[in-house]
């Protein structure tokens, strides 16, 4: 950000505000994780808590990126590079997850359709 002196002066108040906002949301993150009356979902940690926690973190992270890292003043090129990196990372994590969660199915366990099934003894002898 190659702003003039006035702009910088003005931006300082914004930085202060964003800093306080970040403090506030940090407290919120801890509160929803530790205070029982603010525990969403089931008792203790579960999916709902994970989604809330990560959403708050993502919101805080975007505040840091947009305001502190001056993304609001940069050209689209920078957005492109940065978002490309993030999207790639998420996409690839998703692909790994998919690769781990795509089981090999061995035919029909009830009917003998000719496919190999480790749970059932082979009906035809193989030599």
């Amino acid at each position: 950000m190659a702003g003039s002196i006035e702009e910088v002066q003005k931006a300082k108040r914004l930085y202060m505000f964003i800093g306080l906002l970040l403090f506030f949301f940090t407290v919120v993150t801890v509160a929803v994780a530790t205070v029982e009356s603010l525990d969403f979902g089931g008792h203790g940690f579960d999916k709902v808590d994970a989604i809330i926690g990560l959403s708050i973190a993502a919101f805080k992270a975007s505040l840091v990126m947009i305001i502190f890292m001056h993304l609001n003043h940069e050209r689209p090129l920078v957005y492109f590079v940065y978002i490309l990196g993030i999207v790639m990372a998420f996409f690839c994590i998703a692909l790994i997850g998919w690769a781990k969660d795509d089981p090999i199915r061995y035919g029909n366990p009830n009917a003998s359709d000719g496919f190999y099934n480790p749970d059932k003894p082979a009906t035809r002898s193989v030599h």
Partner: protein
Amino acid sequence: MEIPFIVNVRKDTGLINSKVGIWLFLASEVTLFGGLFSGYLFLRLYADYPWPERALPVLPGLINTFVLIGSSVTVVFAWAALKMREWRKFQIYMSITLVCALIFMALKGIEYKAKFGHQAVQIDGDGPVQGHEIVEGHVHYAELDKDGQIHEVDKERKKEDGVFSANRIAFKASELSFVLTRPSHEAYVKEILKQAGDSHTITLKEAYRVINEDELYKGDLNRTELLESENALIADAGAELSTDVLDDLEDAYLDARSHDRKVRTKFLAASWDWIRDEEGIDEAATYVIEMDLWKERRKEDGEKLKIVTLGPVAEVTFTIDPPLTLVLKPGDLVKVSDVDIKLRDDTVAKGEMLPSPIIMGVDALDFRHTAQRAEAEELDPFPVIEQTWLLTHKAHHGDEEEGHDADHRNEFKKIWDCHMAWLKAETARLKTKGREPSMNDKFRVNWDQIIAYRDVNEELEYDAKMVYEYASDPDDDLVLYSSGLFDLKGFAGANHNEFDFPHLEIPRNKVGFESTFTPRWNTYYAIYFTITGLHGLHVIGGALVLGYYLFFGRKMYDSNPEWLANRVEIGGLFWHFVDLVWIFLFPILYLM
């Protein structure tokens, strides 16, 4: 020659070089941490043990989050000050940033230290799920008594000579065998000699002889005579163990082996030359015929080789007189049995295994793994837990002295009974809200619960009834130190200076897996230390760069302040990124 666009932006891209560079670098950092986060995700999703949820004390992490966010604010303020050409303000803000970095790393250090000193043992039991109960705590200190047995000592004496942490293998060794193919035994030999001191002598059992090469080629003597000859003697029986002696033996062995290999190689090459010359290899399908011929030839060679090689022995044995109790770290041993142990450098000690219990003060019981395994076997976890070694073993002292035989329970069973009482009350309380206790609530007894169960009774005895009364009374809660977020007694975990925790001796054969809370203990701590460690390195790196601008930036400020402002902006971008990573690390490591 000057490189353009260092200070002023290039028109069509609107950027200076270093900003393009740092953004690219940050993109690569995103994929670096992306790789690590994917590691976290998949290790957690596919863990075959109960993942430690919310296992870390929150307060240090929370303070660190505040510190880092604060430093992010001050670093933009420092940049803004430079933009407005206020050097003094720049100095102040940048100094605060660096102090923040320092606080962050100091807190990290406190957390790490608490983990390194905290021991966990997974107990190997019998029954359908082989126990798998886990105790956590601090290892006590011990020394060897006159009979060479491990004997617990007071914590105050931990700095004294001969006092060691009570997680050691004690082995009464009478013989040591070294493998000479391994070129260096220095580390362990030094340790063994230190433990032997002056009271034990370690001497070579039999003379080590290697046939002398020159004498062999003279051909005057037969092999027995060669071995008996004066030149063949490397070290005589009774030579005292030292690294020098071992080095001599190793050199002699390696030289002789090298000689033998050379001779054998020559024979091998000659045998192939013979095949190539005698039996033309051009004919079809000769491969198998060739191999048969060659094998025959090799048999003949074998006889000749027996005569022309030196044949050194690869192992030397030393006797220890009188037998010495070696005290070794479990990690130094690759194999343990009642009569011999093997060190990592393949050195074998023969003798007798001594009782080598882990002695510790226990600050948490964890039956989640037991429960998980029981549920996998479709068993009710609670009876399985009742049968574990931890809850059924007989304590060595304490109970019997009091004389009344009403209570045969060991201390941990008492704690568990209190916990069951608390769980009953807690389940009832949660039920009114339509909820159920979690895995953690049910099967883990945390350090503050142990203290609370004990403190409930004025005589400081575990009293299940009173625990139940307190827990089910909405006005009178148990004192749980960790839920009071700002109680500094449990700042970095269980505080063994403040509280007295129950004492446990785990016989070595009951130890399934033991480790301090280091990356070794489980994949959660592995990823915790790796990510936070790498993040810590980023903090240090960033602080060094920002510190450079602060302490050595004045010259550039005088000559080209805009350039310095640009540099601080670039350093700041990196700093914000470090902050950004922490914003994600804090919830996933501390709160989830």
